[in-house]
């Protein structure tokens, strides 16, 4: 690092800070492109700005998203629009109770070549895409769910003893209906932990609902252009990991993670009484990565406390479980998480 003396010799009023192209401009341009992509999606999916931003955060962090919401709230439109804007190969899988794993991953079939020879050939399933929408994932059996989750975790699928690499970037956006609906299978905790975010899509309010009706029932529907490319997305994902994490923010996250563990004697009475299990280290990693992605999306190159607080709920609500006492008391996961994060991450 160069000496600070020339700078320190000047009075604060003499500083005229201007960014140099070599230092900041490339990243600024990339930030602006991401922001433009986000805004493009938001212009199509009306009234879901927060959800769109969370999806972009997960996209920049390279994570998969579990989207929870009632049917008809524009989940499919949201994912399809994102794929278009980001220039990603899109695939959609509708999960049903009779859906088999091979229906997702693909299967080996016998094909005849031009010479009339018959030989087995792997026919790729819908999982082989850069952006995969798995609709109503909780309607399929756990066996099928686990096939998808293996692909999500490893980035590969193995069929007939052969391993097939999934394309990059590979992002799964899974939707699920609320578990109280009939014909659903709740995802096990170990499987939900593999989702980077769990996003809850709320029912639109009056103004948003009117806008949705106006936009989607007209003579023409605007189709956004592609703003990003898969290469851009991969580059952005690597840049996001370089966003600085100040020690103070990191320490706050650590305190929060430890506090969420009910088995620790140092935990508060509330945690020990109502929490079934706390946030895992993987949850901490997710929290940091999501905070970095959000900071970058906000045009910053360091994580702030606010970034952590903003991404805490989608990153941790499916990794943090309360017990029956909490349910009896009317506590929700979001309520408890919000309280713990506000207490430690500041």
């Amino acid at each position, binding site marked *: *690092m*160069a*000496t*600070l003396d*020339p*700078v*320190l010799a*000047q009075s*604060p009023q003499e*500083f*005229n*800070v*201007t*960014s*140099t192209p*070599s*230092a*900041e401009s490339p*990243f*600024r341009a990339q930030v602006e492109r991401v922001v433009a992509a986000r805004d493009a999606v938001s212009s199509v999916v009306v009234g879901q700005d927060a959800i769109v931003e969370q999806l972009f955060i997960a996209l920049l962090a390279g994570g998969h998203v579990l989207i929870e919401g009632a049917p008809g709230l524009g989940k499919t439109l949201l994912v399809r629009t994102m794929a278009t804007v980001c220039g990603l190969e899109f695939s959609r899988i509708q999960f049903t109770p009779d859906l088999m794993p091979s229906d997702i991953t693909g299967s080996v079939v016998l094909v005849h070549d031009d010479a009339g020879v018959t030989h087995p050939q792997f026919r790729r399933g819908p999982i082989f895409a850069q952006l995969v929408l798995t609709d109503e994932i909780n309607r399929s059996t756990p066996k099928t769910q686990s096939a998808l989750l293996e692909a999500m975790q490893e980035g590969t699928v193995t069929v007939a003893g052969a391993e097939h690499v999934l394309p990059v970037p590979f992002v799964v956006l899974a939707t699920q209906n609320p578990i109280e609906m009939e014909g659903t299978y709740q995802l096990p905790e170990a499987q939900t932990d593999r989702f980077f975010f769990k996003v809850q899509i709320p029912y639109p309010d009056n103004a948003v609902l009117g806008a949705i009706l106006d936009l989607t029932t007209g003579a023409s529907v605007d189709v956004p252009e592609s703003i990003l490319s898969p290469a851009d997305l991969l580059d952005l994902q690597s*840049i996001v990991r*370089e*966003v*600085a*994490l*100040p*020690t*103070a*923010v990191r320490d706050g996250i650590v305190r929060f993670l430890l506090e969420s563990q009910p088995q620790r004697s140092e935990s508060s009475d509330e945690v020990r009484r109502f929490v079934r299990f706390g946030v895992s280290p993987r949850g901490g990693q997710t929290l940091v990565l999501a905070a970095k992605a959000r*900071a970058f999306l*906000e045009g*910053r*190159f*360091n*994580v*702030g*406390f*606010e*970034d952590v607080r903003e991404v805490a709920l989608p990153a941790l609500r499916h990794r943090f479980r309360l017990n029956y006492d909490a349910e009896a008391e009317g506590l929700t996961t979001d309520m408890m998480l919000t309280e713990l994060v506000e207490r430690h991450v500041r």
Partner: protein
Amino acid sequence: MIAGSSDAVGVVVRRLRAVRWRWRGRAALIGFLATAVVAIGTVFAVRLAARFVGLDGPVVAWALDGTLAVGLIGVGVVASLVVSGAFAPSLTVLALRADARFALHERLTAALETATASTEDSRLVGALRMDAARHAAMVEPAVLVPIPWRRVALWALAPVAFAVAMPGLPDAEAPIAAGRPGSSAPVPMMDVPIEDERVRENVRRIALLLNAEAVARQDDEIAELARTFEDLSQRLASGTASIADVGADLREATDRAAYALGLAEQTGIRAGDGLGDRPEDLGGRSPANTATRRPGEEAPVDEGRGFEALDRTAGPGANEMTLDSLLERLEMDALAQAAPDENANLDDVRFRQGQGDLDDGTYFDSPALQEATAQIMDNIRRQQDAQAREGGTAFDGTGRTGNQAGGATAPIDEGARGALLDDEVDAVDELLLPAVGRPTGRRIELHPPTAYAADATSGVVDDAVDAGAWRPTQAVAFAPEVVSWRHSDVIGAFFTPAVDDRGVADLSVP
């Protein structure tokens, strides 16, 4: 213009250092004010305590106040500087505070960490620093470290008010006045200059009275005391010394004057204190037990009890002769010398005491007075002749021996007084007995105690009265041969300032 990312970190550091300097200044200011307030309280407490333990006097009080105030404030300033220097927040802490206060999303904190951590391999370090430097301009030290000037001004009023009020605070009373009745109570502020002026005036008058007394007695010791009081009076009048400065000298001179004038037993030894009763209660016993021994003079009789008397007059429990009481006694003596008091048993003599007469000299030039004086002089001359014949023993008018009072003084007893006065006073209308010296260096003193030992009409003197005994002067003294106009100066000096105030008017016999 910042060209590099390192310079950008410098911008952040410089800004944070400015914030830290302001924090130090605020800490020093608050510390100084707090110390000043504590110093005020301490000075008040110490001054109060000093009065209880006897550390009194304006010089002591000012020295105490000044030392304490300067010392405490100095310690406070040093402590504030040390605290502001040693406990000043680090740049990291200030960066966090600035980030939170100005919603910078930990930009400054992260940039500062890049200056110390090895993060040069990150592609974002440069962008991060530039971004932080751009936002560092938003950091206002005055906003981040506010100084509550209104509260500071209120706190600063305390030491300022104290500094203004210091000169008016009650100082310790002058040592010379400490022995006065009721002086244990704090002296009100307005009484201090009045009290000082009164003491100065008392010293001046005592010097005058002692001068006259020395001339009258021809006593070198009293003359020396007079010079001492004159010197003290001049020092006080010229302002070269305060009353507190000369307090010890005044006290010593007052004690010496009390002994020299034979007043000690009247203040330190009272009737019924074991040394003997009043002379009229002595009956046939020797009145020598009531005598006060001069310094350097051998004890006459009953030596043990005499020493006891001396010890008790000088002991802690004795009544000390104060400046006021000394002046009072001197004035009473002067009064008595100017006009006979009740103890003189001269009710049949019509004394005249009037300043107007003394001033214009008509009284002293009256033929009646000159005639009476001539008669008295004749009697004295005869007494001296008889005394010379008897080898220094005083004789009364009938040639009988009387008491010899001191080497240079030849007092006569009541018998002599009767012979001198009672027989002659009828010849004059009025008689004035001024306290003046005589050219012969002798002084005639009338001793009422011995009046009981001598027959005034027959002139028989009780031989039990030991020769050489020093007896108190309780009667008027007069100089029969020089009662003339020129002595009016001395008398006038005594009474001119305030005749009425001293009750002299009541004593005058027209």
